[in-house]
């Protein structure tokens, strides 16, 4: 069972702050983390490997710093790590990103299962997984909350708004995982030692994965950012003043006046 897991290193969006003067993101000092859903995909891959034997390869596309997230994956028990790092990838939208990752997976070859996180917290698009599946003409199952491996096939519980679906797919196939799929523990001391002392992170360029250069990067991306801005603040509201009893009475009378609540 050869599993390839795709991960992304992302800024911790809980810690992102806005420069009120310029309206831009303050990137300095914002910690980067392995995208949470991706981490669940990684843990699931290692779980499957431990049960069915095989190999877990982790890929990430990003700047040289993304190596940190790959080292962390190795510490959790991944066997190999590959960083897709090339200026030619910069500015890719999800279509172009999927072309690059898809080409890399083709280049690596010999896989049974591809695992992704449902979505990344910096973009929240949930698009790259299905787009890679289409690039590779593989069946896809998104929002997986449970994965069960069979002979040449996989049975997955796909989370829905009101329940779930049980879907069966032939291998190889691509699955995106939600956080409910498993609990993330800690890497072992041995794992950490191996990840930082013995294992390597292999770097691949656009040329090496033989991707069409007209399918990657900023200029090839169908979508482009025209403008970005900080969300406009709503006009300042009114702070009700007085004792607890007074403010509550005031509030209830406002709600009645505006006919938001009826008489009780």
């Amino acid at each position, binding site marked *: 069972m050869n599993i390839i897991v795709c991960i992304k290193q992302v800024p911790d969006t809980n810690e992102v702050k806005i420069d009120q003067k310029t309206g831009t993101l303050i990137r300095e000092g914002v910690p980067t983390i392995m995208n949470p859903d991706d981490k669940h995909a990684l843990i699931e891959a290692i779980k499957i490997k431990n049960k069915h034997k095989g190999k877990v390869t982790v890929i990430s596309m990003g700047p040289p710093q993304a190596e940190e997230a790959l080292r962390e994956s190795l510490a959790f028990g991944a066997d190999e790590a590959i960083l897709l790092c090339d200026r030619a990838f910069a500015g890719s939208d999800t279509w172009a990103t999927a072309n690059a990752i898809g080409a890399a997976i083709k280049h690596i070859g010999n896989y049974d299962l591809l695992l992704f996180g449902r979505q990344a917290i910096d973009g929240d698009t949930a698009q790259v997984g299905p*787009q890679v599946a*289409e690039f590779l003409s593989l069946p896809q199952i998104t929002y997986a909350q449970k994965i069960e491996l069979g002979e040449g096939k996989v049975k997955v519980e796909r989370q829905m708004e009101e329940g779930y*679906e*049980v879907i069966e797919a032939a291998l190889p196939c691509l699955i995106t995982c939600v956080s409910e799929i498993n609990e993330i523990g800690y890497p072992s001391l041995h794992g950490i030692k191996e990840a930082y002392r013995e294992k390597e992170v292999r770097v691949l360029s656009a040329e090496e994965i033989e991707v069409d250069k007209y399918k990657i990067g900023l200029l090839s991306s169908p979508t482009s950012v025209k403008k970005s801005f900080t969300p406009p603040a709503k006009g300042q509201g009114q702070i009700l003043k007085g004792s607890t009893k007074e403010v509550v009475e005031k509030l209830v009378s406002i709600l009645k006046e505006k006919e938001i609540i009826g008489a009780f």
Partner: protein
Amino acid sequence: MVKVKVAMQCPETQLNLGGIVLIRGNDFEDVPNMPEVQQAIDNGYLEVLKEEKNLEKKEKKEGEEVLVFAEQRHNKISRVVFELLGKARELADKLNVKTAAILLTDKDSGLSQDLINYGADKVYLAESPILKNYQTDFYTKVVSEHIRKTKPQVAIYGATHIGRDLAPRIAQRINTGLTADCTGLDITEDGLLLQTRPAFGGNLMAQIICKKHRPQMSTARPGVFKMREKDGSRKGEIVKIAANVSEKDSKLKVLEIIKEAKKKVNLEEAKIIVSGGRGLGEKKNFSLVEDLARLLKAEVGASRAAVDSGWIAKDHQVGQTGKTVRPKLYIAIGISGAIQHKAGMQNSDMVIAINKDSSAPIFEVADYGIVGDLFKVVPELINELKK
């Protein structure tokens, strides 16, 4: 009747046409379409008001439509589709094209007419037993082939678990751009779709365009756009399209669809939401929020902090990573108002915030704020409401 006026090249300053006198220099007037009038027009003595421009506005251009994917589940159109149709109409009017919907189902039991009532001019209907329930491969094939054939300018999908599975797959197949979770859609001066969406967990808004590839595709979450009133008198065209799919084309099989028995949390459609956050301190205090909600017949919401702490299930979460809501009244209790939370609730008609910290960002989006101890304010509020 025709609208005419005396043409500049007419040698006379006035024309008598079978008793009707027209004077040069006057504006267009309605005259009966008599032989005399027709002759004067043919001579070039009369100028006819060209109504083509007006006609164009009434008669929408064929093709290059704005297309909405009409998601159905258990033979019921998902509410988000009606919301999208309202927005699609707005875009289509600006582009002077038709609003279309594409519906995949086993048998149309009046769903097409529903779509028309909510704004579709045209419904493309693919009927086949194989299309009864959503299945990635079959739906991708039918919708992609339809898009390739009819070339819509814009295609919109609900950002549901179905839409977010389908839309990216289609985008990659037909090689076009796709923008997820748009909170605003508009048409630029150049006729491009301007897609506004939150980025970096709602810390930033980005406006995205797709210049060269068609259709321009977006997804939008339920509750983001306002639904139009249903208009039962609207008429539209239903066009049947082929469903060229067969079981053997797919390596996927949906074995079961399981509806969970748990009470459905319907935040998107709620009129009133009472939400709790970190300020509640511990799990058992969440009952305060639930008591108030019960009294107001409201749904219970929560911030990410409350959900992450395990005080309440994830389907109650409001915010960028949770649900987007727009109730008439949103009461935020002990919620500081991180940007990612505000992103999910700032479109509420009225927001009331109760928090002990007067500098909490939630007050920036509140219409009415109470700075105080929630453990005093909320019980008092419950008492007052019970009166």
